[in-house]
């Protein structure tokens, strides 16, 4: 049960990463590679602030702003300096690597003694007089800290998701979606598409940074490893989300990404329980994303319906 609650918690906090990737790849329609760097810098900034005694809300919000700033730099490199978007993302991620090491003073930042989210959530749980030894769910025991953390993550992830959904219904959000959908049309109705592009990357990587902040707090430390492989993880979750919310409205697709991320984490938990080495997870994730990208094309070319009367081998 701890594993399940853990998978759900991880799914919730990583859904912000996945939604960041969703905004960049699906809404803006661009290959923004900043996510890895934004996630790492979010983790490190939050950890550095917590280590200096800040509360988890402030630390997480500042971490989100740091991720947003990373997105702004990528966006400006692309729109102002005409750097290819792939290269812009790689440049920013690489530069952030040094910034992260600088903030960490070379080593990891442990969060065990700080007011990081799990500990704060647990102390609120205790203060509310809830059972300190945890709760028995479906016959197995879940620790107070795990359950309190999961409950705290519901608003921590839910509020940004809600705000994102609302944002896309505003005039500004609509302008951003139009920019990703049809630039020619967007320009023709007077939308500054470059500004929208930068704004979109700020929103996307802001959420990724926030996700990194929550991830570091959940793991109770921050290190440089957290800068790797997040983009592919996010993409995997987005793909699962697409499958869940096929053909639905934008709100449904956003919810689909959240559910896709939770499903993704459940699959990961299942794989680990089944004995898959945790070190192999990134490889498996990469293979999964590759398979989803490639297989539909292969299937289509193999089993393409032929026009009536056409020879089977033409």
């Amino acid at each position, binding site marked *: 049960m701890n594993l399940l609650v853990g998978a759900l918690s991880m799914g919730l906090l990583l859904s912000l990463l996945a939604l960041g990737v969703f905004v960049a790849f699906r809404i803006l329609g661009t290959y923004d590679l900043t996510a890895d760097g934004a996630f790492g810098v979010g983790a490190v900034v939050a950890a550095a602030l917590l280590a200096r005694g800040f509360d988890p809300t402030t630390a997480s919000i500042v971490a989100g702003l740091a991720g947003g700033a990373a997105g702004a730099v990528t966006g400006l490199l692309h729109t102002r300096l005409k750097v290819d978007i792939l290269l812009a993302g790689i440049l920013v991620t690489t530069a952030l690597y040094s910034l992260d090491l600088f903030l960490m003073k070379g080593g990891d930042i442990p969060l065990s003694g700080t007011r990081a989210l799990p500990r704060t959530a647990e102390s609120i749980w205790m203060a509310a007089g809830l059972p300190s030894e945890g709760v028995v769910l479906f016959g197995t025991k879940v620790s107070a800290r795990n359950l309190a953390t999961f409950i705290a993550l519901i608003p921590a992830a839910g509020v940004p998701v809600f705000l994102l959904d609302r944002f896309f219904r505003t005039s500004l959000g609509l*302008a951003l979606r139009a920019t990703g959908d049809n630039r020619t049309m*967007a320009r023709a109705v007077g939308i500054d598409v470059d500004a929208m592009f930068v704004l979109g990357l700020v929103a996307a990587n802001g959420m990724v940074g926030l996700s990194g902040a929550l991830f570091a707090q959940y793991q109770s430390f921050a290190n440089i490893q957290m800068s790797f492989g997040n983009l592919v993880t996010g993409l995997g979750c987005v793909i699962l989300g697409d499958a869940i919310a096929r053909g639905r409205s934008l709100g449904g697709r956003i919810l689909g990404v959240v559910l896709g991320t939770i499903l993704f984490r459940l699959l990961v938990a299942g794989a680990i329980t089944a004995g898959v080495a945790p070190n192999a997870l990134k490889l498996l994730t990469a293979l999964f994303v590759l398979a989803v990208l490639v297989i539909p094309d292969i299937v289509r070319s193999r089993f393409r319906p032929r026009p009536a009367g056409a020879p089977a081998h033409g």
Partner: protein
Amino acid sequence: MAESRALELVDLRHTFNEGTVHEVRALRGVNLVMEPGAFVVVLGFNGSGKSSLLNAVAGTLIPAHGEVKVYGEDVTQWPEHRRAALVGRVFQDPLRGTAPRLTIAENLALATQRGRRWPDLRRALSRPKREAIAAQVSELGMGLEDRLDTPIGSLSGGQRQALTLLIATLVSPRILLLDEHTAALDPKSAEMVLSLTEEVVRKLRLTTLMVTHSMAQAVRLGDRVLMMHRGKVVRDYRGPRKRRLRAEELLDHFNELRNEDLLDESAAGMLERVYV
């Protein structure tokens, strides 16, 4: 007086790929003055410069030389999105003028924002706005007001082009640009979009600049026809001459131009044979 000039083009010149073998002198000194409410049709072959002319007005092309003025204001250097506050456009490709994954209502909500630099954080589709949009859409007479929440990408080319026309004119533009906007449609849709165009231009008294291949359209629409060739205006029919203009006459002029071109080529061939 500036008010009498809705659009003024002064000596527009532009060359693509200057100094290379692919050099194209798209605009070679084009001048045009349009009074408010004027409807000018621009005819020409591919490569005559008529699209470049339109793009220079839209802001897609910043000409190397010359001025574009809208009601006396020099907008030559304005970027496209800023120009959109003054200029409404309908493209040749019906897919270009609408955002496919956005719904009909959302596309039109964007059109109501035309000219505002930064859209705000209010709900894009408030109830009154939605109702206003439904009323506008129902005027098209296509029944699309019942499908406001349908992604626009699932509509036909003709439907999308009709909606693009609505998007371009929902907030009345100072200048309406039509870029061969029926050329990619089937005959029935083309006729539908064309009569909608006539209707909206008349109703809103729009100053309209239309580019077309179709001589029939040039004869039918507008109060002035310009024929462009190799980056220049070579014929200008207006007033009574435009009203008397017939497609056959235009065709004759076109053939003259074509013959001049052929002559040029054969002359070039002869020179090549003699001298190379």
